[in-house]
């Protein structure tokens, strides 16, 4: 194990950061910074957080550690950060689940996705992509709608989970077109993709990074991308808009802290994050995975979160998914 960092110091610091204390803006960063990931290790939120942590620790000169606090639709970890001291030592990898969808899904949530946080920087955004089984006979969205009308109970449509942004995209699409569908939720994108490849379910709405490899390998066919324009890495996949369906949706992973973070810290973190994700290597790697580095000021990002909450609330209601 490489052990370049003073770990004992790190432990003490992490402990100190967990206890609400006085704001120590002057000497920031004061010991290690922890980024709470509200999901289990291994997912896209976790990976982007670890990537960011690696870059930030080099730039800030202190260790930046990732801490996984999964649970309750990414709200457990987010709540933890909302409750921490706004001293810049505890941050959260905010995302479309914890800060856009869950507030409508979980009615007794204690935090406000906009006001309980200081939104710092957008890290990665990526579109959703709809993929179909190769033998399904579906070549574009029109085929999809036609097949959905034919079958009793509509077409089976898979997603990585109930209440995920990919599921809600299916809900929006069906609402717009007045078609029936049978949503088949899975526990994560992997099993859902297996079912599509095996032909148990004809189509799936997936995030581009987890589907990118399968599309390149040709094990599934991509029929529509939810970005506003065609994705540079997949120029052959048309957007929803091009096919006459006005639907744009991006999934996002960002960096936020507790409300009331001193502006100087926010500014510094924003600058360093932009520097980490803006390097040519980072851009190239993101592009390959189907993501794009974020590009928003903290103000724009805060306004964006508010828009997102408003955008998803009616869709969540329509999907019938609630948690109490």
């Amino acid at each position, binding site marked *: 194990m490489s052990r370049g960092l003073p*770990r004992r110091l790190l*432990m*003490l610091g992490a402990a100190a950061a967990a206890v609400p204390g006085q704001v120590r803006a002057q000497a920031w960063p004061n010991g290690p910074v922890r980024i709470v990931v509200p999901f289990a290790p291994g997912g896209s939120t976790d990976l982007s957080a670890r990537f960011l942590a690696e870059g930030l620790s080099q730039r800030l000169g202190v260790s930046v550690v990732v*801490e996984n606090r999964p649970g309750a639709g990414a709200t457990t970890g987010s709540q933890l950060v909302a409750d921490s001291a706004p001293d810049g030592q505890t941050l959260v990898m905010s995302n479309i689940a914890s800060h856009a969808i869950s507030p409508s899904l979980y009615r007794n949530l204690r935090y406000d996705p906009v006001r309980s946080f200081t939104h710092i920087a957008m890290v990665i955004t990526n579109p959703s992509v709809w993929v179909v089984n190769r033998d399904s006979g579906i070549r574009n969205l029109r085929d999809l709608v036609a097949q959905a009308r034919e079958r009793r109970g509509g077409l089976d449509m898979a997603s990585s989970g109930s209440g995920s942004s990919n599921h809600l995209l299916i809900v929006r699409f069906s609402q717009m077109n007045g078609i029936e569908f049978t949503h088949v939720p899975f526990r994560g994108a992997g099993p859902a993709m297996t079912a599509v490849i095996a032909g148990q379910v004809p189509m799936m709405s997936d995030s581009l990074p987890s589907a990118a490899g399968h599309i390149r390998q040709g094990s599934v066919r991509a029929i529509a991308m939810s970005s506003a324009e065609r994705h540079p890495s997949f120029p052959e996949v048309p957007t929803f808009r091009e096919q006459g369906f006005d639907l744009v949706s991006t999934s996002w992973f960002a960096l936020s802290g507790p409300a009331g973070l001193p502006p100087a810290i926010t500014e510094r973190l924003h600058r360093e994050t932009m520097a980490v994700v803006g390097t040519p290597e980072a851009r190239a790697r993101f592009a390959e995975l189907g993501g794009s580095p974020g590009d928003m000021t903290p103000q724009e990002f805060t306004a964006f979160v508010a828009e997102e909450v408003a955008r998803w609330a009616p869709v969540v209601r329509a999907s019938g998914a609630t948690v109490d």
Partner: protein
Amino acid sequence: MKLNTKDLIGGGLLVLVAVVGLWLNQDHTLGTARRMGPGYMPMLSFWILLGLGAIVVLSGLFNGPDPLDKWTPLEIYAVPLGVVAFFIGYYLAGMVGFTGWYPLGFGALAGCLAFSVAPGWRPLGLVHAGMAVFGLMLEQFGLMVSIVGCVIVASLADPTHRVKGVLGMIVFLCVLCWFVFIRELDIRVPLWPVFLTQ
């Protein structure tokens, strides 16, 4: 009648869980066989559990005798005492102003200690009380102090312990846990009391 006390209580336990489960499951929509709601599978499993529990109870009426170990009166009284102590600890801690999981921890500690009044329950009560002490102290007093607390309480469960042995064990465990969990595995937990490092 050859009563099998173990089966009667065990089956009764299963029936109890099933009945409570079915009652709680009323909140969940059953759905249809095609589109099963969140309540469908619980309904199936709790009904099966109820049936199996009932069979265990019924057979327990005949396939005995298999009595429980003989309990002293003190052991019998300690059980309700422990349960009452749990709730008292839980609500008292809540009233005093502890939040989060602290009331649960105090409740568990009080319950386990009350249990230990009976000599027969001491291993059970004190080992679990040690765990409760560990949970209560870990986040504020740090790993080292929690180990000390937990080991001392848990050691009381075994009458053959000597003070010197316990002290040696505490030192050994503190060093070992520091090395394994802090230095090597780097788990996220304070090492020393938080109020000292502030």
